[in-house]
């Protein structure tokens, strides 16, 4: 059937059981999933469901009337738009203006002409579909603006913003904050000898290993090239070093397969933490972890260092 409506959930809030039953039957025959409410409270509860995007609200209902529900919905913080069609009595045309001002999208006079109702609901669906497409595009743009296209880690701008936000939180709550700067050992050589596509595969795989190896609330970003930065909330220097060492081992243990060949890749890491720095700022934390990373490189790579130097259980590879 060319005008068959795709499955949608629609709320019918109507205190008159006969109107409710007729609407329910009609809407179901048009392919809608119906949710029924016989008063304003039931309507409000149903409207909290994210799948309820279309609503037929009777003007007069016990508990809360249609316009009151409209006002609450428009003032609320529901992520997606709800298209509301108010049903009003023929002899109360003044309701229409009040209803539309309260936030209704459309109105119909009862008893409802069903052909008209069907067409008007299709208009509502078009608006919802447009909003969905818009939100989808917005999400894609946000992803493009905040994530690194290759590794899907946070991009440099986002990870820096994250570091600044976590610093503010750490200052406010008196908690610690850790930072790891790391890069791949001899990454240029991989690119030069095996090509950039292999280099890209290595970066992607390392990003996966790092993501798997940190806590869910830690943030990993691609700082630039093969340099990555990890922000670790509530982590003192000792813990930062332990996490970095765990990540180093995980990377070293991996045989990354690219173009039919296995590649061994190691990382060097530098650790810093908020509570070991004087007047810590994002820049100072980056400088400190960068110094530690340089120390790891100078000491022969494939190791973890900290600034200031921290004695940890993972001492053998930690300077």
């Amino acid at each position, binding site marked *: 059937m060319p005008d068959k409506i795709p499955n949608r959930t629609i709320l019918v809030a109507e*205190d*008159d*059981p*006969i*109107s409710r*039953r*007729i609407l329910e*039957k009609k809407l179901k*025959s048009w392919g809608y999933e119906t949710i029924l409410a016989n008063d304003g409270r039931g309507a409000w509860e149903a409207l909290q469901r994210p799948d309820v995007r279309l609503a037929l609200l009777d003007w*007069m209902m*016990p508990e809360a009337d249609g316009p009151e529900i409209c006002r609450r919905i428009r003032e609320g913080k529901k992520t997606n738009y709800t298209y509301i069609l108010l049903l009003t*009595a*023929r*002899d109360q045309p003044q309701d229409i203006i009040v209803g539309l001002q309260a936030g209704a999208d459309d109105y119909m006079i*009862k*008893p409802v002409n*069903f052909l008209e109702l069907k067409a008007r609901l299709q208009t509502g669906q078009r608006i919802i579909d447009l909003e969905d497409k818009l939100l989808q595009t917005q999400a894609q743009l946000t992803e493009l603006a905040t994530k690194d296209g290759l590794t899907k880690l946070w991009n440099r701008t986002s990870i820096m913003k994250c570091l600044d936000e976590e610093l503010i939180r750490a200052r406010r709550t008196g908690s610690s904050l850790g930072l790891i700067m790391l890069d791949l050992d001899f990454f240029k050589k991989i690119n030069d000898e095996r090509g950039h596509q292999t280099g890209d595969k290595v970066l992607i795989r390392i990003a996966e290993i790092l993501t798997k190896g940190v806590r869910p609330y830690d943030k990993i970003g691609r700082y630039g090239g093969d340099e990555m930065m990890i922000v670790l909330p509530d982590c003192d220097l000792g813990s930062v070093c332990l996490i970095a060492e765990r990540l180093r081992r995980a990377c070293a243990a991996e045989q990354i397969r690219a173009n039919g060949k296995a590649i061994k890749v190691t990382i060097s890491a530098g650790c810093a933490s908020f509570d070991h720095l004087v007047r810590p700022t994002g820049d100072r934390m980056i400088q400190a972890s960068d110094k530690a990373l340089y120390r790891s490189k100078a000491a022969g790579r494939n190791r973890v260092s900290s600034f200031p130097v921290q004695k940890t259980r993972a001492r053998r590879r930690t300077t």
Partner: protein
Amino acid sequence: MTADSGIPMSKAEALDRVDGDETFLQELLNMYAAEHAEKTGAMENAIRAADFRAIRDLGHSLKGSSANLSLPRLQDAAFDMETAGLEKDLEGALKALNRLGHEYRRLKDFLGTP
């Protein structure tokens, strides 16, 4: 809508609203019977308590049910009840209540239901 016609129900119009489904129309008429009994009982109580808001709301609600089933005379009587509630007119409400009873009996005769 044929609000001023003498017949209690425009059956063709009501059937048209339910796509000619006689069984469904009967289901709705049964619902209406229960609705009418419940609402007129509540109206009696509201009139006794001079609760004009309840008188108005009950009239409004029964007006909607009646309109849905193309019952113009019952719709009119329910509208009178709603108006009496709005105008705080107890005498008008009593008249409307009597009329609702009378028109419902006429509907039953018209449909040939006991």
